[in-house]
Structure formats: C-alpha cells, structure tokens
C-alpha cells in the first residue's frame, strides 16, 4: 500500500544547523497494516510522516502509495490518498467554520471543488449520525464553530474527517500527545475503532511505548533517520517495554536507550 524507498532528507543543508533527518529510509506497508512508530526526539518520526504527506519534497528516494508514485506530487494532491491527524489539535480543523462545514470539506478531499453546494441536506443527516456514533455530544451541535470545541473533541472530529472519505493511508502524528491522559485514551480507542471499521492502512507516531505495543499489528522504531527495529505479528504481541529497550541498545550499539531518550 505504501512504499518508501531510500528516502533522504536534510534540513538547513550547508549551515551550522544542518540536520540529516532521514538517512536512506526504507519502509513497505501492506494493505491493512496498522504500524506504530516510536523513537527519540529527532529520530525522524514526524519527518517520515511529513515526507509521506508531502509537506516538502524529499532530497532523494521515491514514495509510492497504492501503486501511484507520489514523490513529485504537491501536498494538496497527495491528500487524495491520505487522511491526517496532527499533534496540535488546532491544526486539523478550521476553527472559524462550523462542525458540519469542516466535515463537508473533508468529504470532498481529492475531488474537484466547483460551484455545487458546499454542503447538502443529505450530508447533514449523515454527519449527525456519524457524530452520534462518536458519542461526544456533538450530534446536536453541527452548526457550532469548531473553535469552541475542546482539544479532545477536535482530535476526534479530525479523526472522523480523516476517515470520512476512505483514505488509502491514515497518518496519525502523535495525535494524542497534547491531550490529558483520560482524553488521550479515549481518542486512541476511537482511532482503533475507526481503523478497524474502515480497514485503514495506518502509520501512528507515538511517544508512548506502551501505546505503541498495545495498538496496531506492527511496530517500528526509528533512530537517526532510519528504521532500526521492525517487529510484527506474534512477536510484537509478546513485546514488553523492557524488551524494546534492550532491543534498542543492541541495534543502535549504544547505551542511550534510556527512558529519557525514548519516552521523553
């Protein structure tokens, strides 16, 4: 479904702030894979997701989604294939627009936007039903401005928007990091539910090793712009946090694999 081949990306090349964020990254996701991504700060997790989403172009390598080479496509064109939820709850929605308008925008992802109505009556009914399923009390607030919602409600809405138009790929970039623990758990559970219901191929970046182990069918750990650990299936299910830490010191050949690095 997703194929990253030899991806290189350097920021601020030629300056004192030069940072090789991705160094020959390779990754292949099968249809329906739910992959959790962990790694320390600066390991390249978010950079990888941004490379896939097309926030900027990569220096080298190719990105293929469902057989289409998207390496040269701008972000807004790649959006046809990709649903995204960001770390910052402010980033995924238009705060000055209504809940239903945000959903209607998401429902037209990848389509040509012409002079048809921005939202139709049948859509409204559908959205009310979808929001009722979210169980956040949003179903009767379709015309509320999204700016009035809490962080958790926004992330839930963004999740719904990301999955509204079945994406080939769902990118979750530490989407619970800015939420309190209780809300984070609820949004994570909702993510699981939406991924399962829609059979979505998913990449989820997290800082929380427990979450990384508990969710998805495959886990990758990044270090220094590359994938250093890649476990799936039964092996992943048996994984524990100490296992992961031990594995990391072995692969990276350093003792840096302490809580500070991985859990920060």
């Amino acid at each position: 479904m997703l194929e990253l081949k030899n991806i290189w990306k350097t920021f601020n090349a030629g300056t004192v702030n030069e940072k090789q964020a991705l160094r020959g990254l390779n990754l292949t996701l099968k249809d329906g894979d739910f992959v959790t991504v962990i790694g320390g700060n600066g390991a390249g997790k978010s950079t990888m997701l941004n490379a896939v989403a097309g926030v900027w172009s990569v220096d080298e390598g190719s990105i293929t989604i469902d057989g289409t080479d998207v390496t040269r496509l701008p972000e807004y064109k790649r959006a046809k294939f990709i649903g995204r939820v960001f770390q910052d709850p402010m980033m995924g929605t238009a705060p000055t627009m209504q809940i239903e308008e945000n959903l209607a925008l998401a429902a037209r992802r990848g389509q040509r936007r012409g002079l048809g109505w921005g939202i139709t009556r049948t859509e409204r009914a559908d959205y009310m039903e979808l929001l009722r399923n979210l169980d956040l009390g949003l179903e009767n607030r379709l015309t509320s401005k999204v700016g009035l919602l809490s962080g958790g409600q926004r992330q839930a809405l963004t999740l719904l928007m990301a999955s509204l138009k079945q994406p080939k790929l769902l990118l979750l970039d530490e989407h619970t990091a800015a939420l309190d623990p209780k809300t984070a758990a609820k949004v994570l559970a909702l993510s699981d539910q939406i991924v399962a219901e829609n059979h979505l191929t998913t990449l989820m970046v997290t800082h929380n090793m427990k979450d990384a182990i508990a969710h998805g069918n495959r886990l990758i750990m990044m270090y220094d712009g590359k994938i250093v650990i890649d476990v799936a299936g039964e092996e992943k299910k048996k994984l524990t946090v100490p296992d992961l830490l031990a594995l990391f010191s072995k692969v990276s050949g350093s003792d840096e694999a302490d809580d500070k690095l991985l859990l920060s």
Partner: protein
Amino acid sequence: MLDFAKLISSLPGGVAQGLIWGVMAIGVYLTYKILDIADLTVDGTMCTGGAVCVMMIINGHSVPVALLCAFLAGMAAGLVTGLLHTAMGIQALLAGILTQLALYSINLKIMGWGTGSGRSNQPISVDNYNLVVSSRYLFDGSYPWYKSPIFWGAVFCVVIILILYWFFGTELGCAIRATGANPNMSRAQGINVDFNKVLGLMLSNGLVALSSGLLAQYQGFIDINSGRGAIVIGLAAVIIGEVVFSRIFRNFALKMLGVVFGAIIYYMVMQVVLWLKVDSDMLKILSAAIVAIFLAVPYWKGKYTHVHVKHLPEAADGAGSSAAAGEEAGRNA
C-alpha cells in the same frame, strides 16, 4: 455658528458615498477577514477601476460594459498580487505594495489613453453621458427617486452581497474560507491553497475596482490620487461594521451588510467632521487615528478584560478538557 440645516443637507451625500465605498469595503472584507491577508493592492485598484471605467465611457462604450471592464481590470491587479505572493513567495503585504506602486504608472497610462502620454486625472461629465450614479442626481431635486445614487448604491451592495453569499456557500467558496481559516488543514484536505488565495485576491480587487468605477461617475472625475488611503477607509468600514453590528449580525450575508453600514457610518462621521469645520488637510490623519484605535480595541479587550463566552455543554463523559475549551473560546472571542 454651526448651521444644523447644512449638516442635514450633507448627510445624503455621506450615505451615497458610504454605499459606493461599501462595495469596496466588501472587497477588503474578503481579503482581510476571510483570507486573513491585508491586501494593499486596493490603493492602486481604487484608481484603476475608475480610470478604466471613465476611459471606456469616453470612448463610446456603455456604462455597464465599462463597469464590467473595470471589474476585470481589478481582477487582473489581484491576479498580479496573488502570483507575486504564491508563485514568487513574496509576503502578501509586500506583494500588495509592489502591485500598488506598479499600478500608479499603469493608472497614468490608462487615463492618458490615446494621447501617447500619461495623465493624472480625467473628468467625466454627467451632461454628456448617461451615468448610473452621479452626485447631480442626488442634489438636484429635479430627478426621480430611482435615479438617486443612494438607490443605485444600495442595489449594487445588495446584489453583490447576495452573489457572494451564494458563492461562499459553494464548494469553491468553502475552500477559500478554509484556506483563510487554516491553510494546513486545507492542504491536508486536498485544497490548493495558492489557487484559492489568488482567486480571493482577484475577487476582492475586482469589487474594489467596480466601486472605483462607481465613485468616478459619482464625483464626475477620476484622479491618480483617488485610491490613496483606500485600504484605511476599507478597513475602517470593516472594523466599524464588526464592532457595531457583531452582536446582531451573525449570518454571513448580514456580516457583509454590516460592512456596508460601517462604510456609511464612516462617511456620515466624515460629514460631521467637515461640518465642524475641521481643517480638511487633517482628514487623513483623523482616518488613520480612528482605524488605529478600532484595530487596538479587540487587542486591549483581550489583554485587560476577561471576556465571558457562553460555554457549550461538554460531553457527558468528559471527552475533552474543559480548560482547553475555555482557553479556545477566549482566543476566538
């Protein structure tokens, strides 16, 4: 001794000018409020539209055709600013200033069309042409009501508001609104942010130029300085409209109407100021001061007072932290 009757007799002129500038202010509203761009192109466009309109009429074209061409000329100016900003990566504010400066030359050339050199002004007399709006129709009592520039100004404003109300409800219009509200989200939803910014700037400047075409007819001339400080008047209208009417005008169409009312209020105040025999040299500094104060009010309000916002009910199971909601609401107030 101030002559009260003189003030009363000057007010209709204020209303007429306010309505004509209302069209311009709607254009400013599109960029400033919807796209979140302060577009200074309008200082140039506010002359270009009138110049195109006057020259077309003088050269034998009908008034509607002339106004349409003024609108298109404004759109072209908006296109230039849009491309400077999106394709060449120049800050929006600077892009607008560059286009505005370039338009100074172009406006001189338009007004000197056919003479081989530039001209800094061009008269158009209502005696010779069947103009759609003219101050003559307003102050000479021999004309019927449907010739009044107040009537035609209102017609233009209402029709434009209705068209824009429809347009911003379409998929394309929603995409422009989303672009202004959150460009990151827009890109993630497959919206071409650059295209929408250019389109918004074109639409805005088209309206400004249309307003300029009307104003040139109303005052009977166009001058190279006609657009100077236009952005300030436009912003004044937008901000006054918002401050005065935001509690009652919540619907999008009504918000635009509020902007038109803002322009009318601005020109009424100007009439009063002139009536008070304030030195007319000081009008611009007065306008600038008024706009500066109105721009500062929301900032001061946020800084020095607690704004009480009606909290929406949280989900029963506490799906989100209410602290975040409160903070958010405060930010949006």
